[in-house]
């Protein structure tokens, strides 16, 4: 994984964890175009789809992320396109094919693995839970 990719992913993680308390550099054009909340949603989903634990838990397709389903509407796909267009470092990694986000041909499997390992190691997961179930006997 190149240094620029790592910097981008770290910025995405920081933005996602701290929202607007972070000075955006690579993502600033995207934030300007999309707004903080939309960027938050797209970043959240990209980080989740590339976190090995969540891929397993959710049985995600490792090769493609759906941009159109009951949760994601046409606007979602359009926003993802804006994110890629305004963030060249991200468009080096991903492309949109039909209704899916896929890795670009220039981003090989080794880099995908490194990217996912980096996200797993660096993304904080702060869980808020509802604990009311009765303990199992």
């Amino acid at each position, binding site marked *: 994984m190149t240094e620029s990719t790592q910097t981008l992913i770290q910025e995405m993680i920081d933005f996602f964890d701290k929202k607007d308390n972070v000075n955006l550099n690579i993502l600033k054009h995207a934030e300007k175009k999309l707004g903080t909340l939309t960027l938050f949603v797209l970043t959240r989903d990209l*980080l989740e789809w590339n976190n090995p634990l969540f891929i397993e838990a959710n049985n995600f397709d490792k090769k493609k992320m759906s941009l159109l389903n009951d949760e994601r509407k046409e606007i979602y796909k359009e926003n993802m396109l804006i994110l890629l267009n305004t963030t060249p470092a991200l468009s080096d990694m991903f492309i949109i094919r039909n209704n899916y986000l896929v890795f670009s041909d220039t981003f090989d499997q080794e880099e995908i693995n490194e990217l996912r390992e980096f996200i797993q190691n660096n993304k904080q997961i702060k869980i808020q839970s*509802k*604990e009311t179930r009765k303990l199992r006997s």
Partner: protein
Amino acid sequence: MGFVSPLGEKSFFAEKQDLEEKGYYEGKINFQALVDYLKGNPKFQFYHENFISKRKKVVPNLSSFSTSVDTHIPLLASLENGEQYEMKMEGKLNKRIDRVVLRQSKIHFNFEFTTKKETEYNIGIKYEFFDENAIELKVYTYEDLEFLTKYLEVKIPEYLRNEVTSKFNVAFKAAKSDCNVIDNLYEFAPDFVIFNRNNTDLWNDLVSLSKCQINEESSFFSGSNENIAVLNILSNFPNKLYLFFALKRKPKLINTLMSKIDDEYEQDLIRVLCVVCMEVWTQRSIANAPFFLAEDKRTVVQKYPRVDSFEKGYCVIATKSSKEELKKERKTNFKVNKYNEAYEIGIVESRHDGFNFSPTSHSFDVHGYANPLDPLRTRIKGESFYIPAEIAFYLTEELVSSKKLNLLSNVLDAYISAPVATVSMITTVIRSTKQLLKNSIRSKIARRFRAALSKIKNNRRSTDEIVKKSNERELYNKLDDFIRDAKKSGIGLEEITFYDIIKNLRGVTPQSTKVAEAAEKGLIGKRIIEDEIFEALYTTYTKKPANNVSAFAFGGITYHRKSTPFEVFFKEFVHEGTHILDDLTKIAKNKSVLLKETQNIIHEGERMKKYVSRLTSDQLIEFRARIFEREFEIANNLKLDFKTVKKLVKFIKKNY
């Protein structure tokens, strides 16, 4: 019986005769006699000669003489209302004389596509003691197969339904939404095939069809009927809520379909669209629906010269009042109908993005705005009906002609539960069907038309049920309805869509509405996962056991156990959604704001200040989620997690 040679072997002649005896009769068949015999005689000795058709048909030829040809005697199938039609069938009969038993295990079904992607259903009835078909029948639509099997009192086996589904799925996949291929597929697909398709695929295919021609015979060779294809998709769409919101996002599609579909199918299209909307409209939206004055434009212009132009995106509405009142207010733009009700005339403007006209040329009042899928009320024969505004806009788009009004009148007539109106409409359709059947060149179209007819009847029935249901529905029991329907249809929690969530949360409590709106915008995601995975994920990140954890949220996504009961899921979504909203709005990060916001919550008429003043930040965050969840429990009459707020606070202090 053949001739046997002295050597004990069959002679050439004997073999030939055996072959003939064992071969099939492939000429014209008396299907009526055959099917009636099968129905009346579950065990019998089969003589194929008994079912050879003796009917001749005189056909003109190029010379001045006519010739007569053998024809099948068709099976007369009955529609639910007792009307009959001639079923298109083919078949062949085994010449072997032996015993046949009409038993499920002796009947084999299979399904094939023709090269033109039309459907063929084959039924083979075997001899009792030979693994050989005595009778082979072929019908061309699933509706006909259903009629035939019901008539014979046998079941359509599950393997056939699976085969049909699987072959259609392969064909749909290969078609890649190409409107020139999917039109035929949707025209012939049985309801269950369409119903089991993915919402997104169906929507994309509908959009694709709308971009092509929609008519009965788009090309001489394909002869496909896109009208039925479109109606089949709409009437079998599995998630009407999905369809409603998809149409709401793209209302122009309704207009496109209305203008492209053939005239004789327009009323079906309106009816199906009404059915979709009826499933989603709330009691409140129906109660507030503006009145659509379905009146010929020329009449309105004659009576009220100031109402001089109707533009796209407007429809004429009327506000009910009394004649005396309107006169007192010196209103001139009003009319009195035959029920002696006075209406003030005005327009409703569409909020449709593409219809941003300013009513400069109008001197009549703009009474309001309607989104394309909002209900408008109209009245036919003294009964109120509700139609989506987009239909009203469409009907006033060009010229509210008598033809269009008749169309609307026909459609709405079918809504009326009074049998007279219903029967008269069906009779009209059947009359046209019969006329088509008589025309041999167009018999294929007739078959499809008939298939559509059965769907029309189903739609009408469901409309009546939905109207009734909608009238009975109270705002706060809609979750009950959903849970009951979901349990009845056997769907799992993982099949709950965002539309289900939004529908069951919006308008119930202020907080659940906020959560629903955030979910609609994509700010809140949801995942339903296996319990074991749920626990593993939770434990990995918290290093704590997950036995007593029923749901969790992080990073804008709520996670739920697959085993969660429906009634618990929705309130947990409100709970976890509250955590996400508090995180997004940063309430959770600022203790003073968090405290103030929480103190100001009014629950069961009581301000929460006295309960929360001494809570820590984490406890306040949890209190908010639980109090809003409790509010939702009360509104939906669900079982309370805590009987009193005091007990809730005690639990939080102990556990957070």
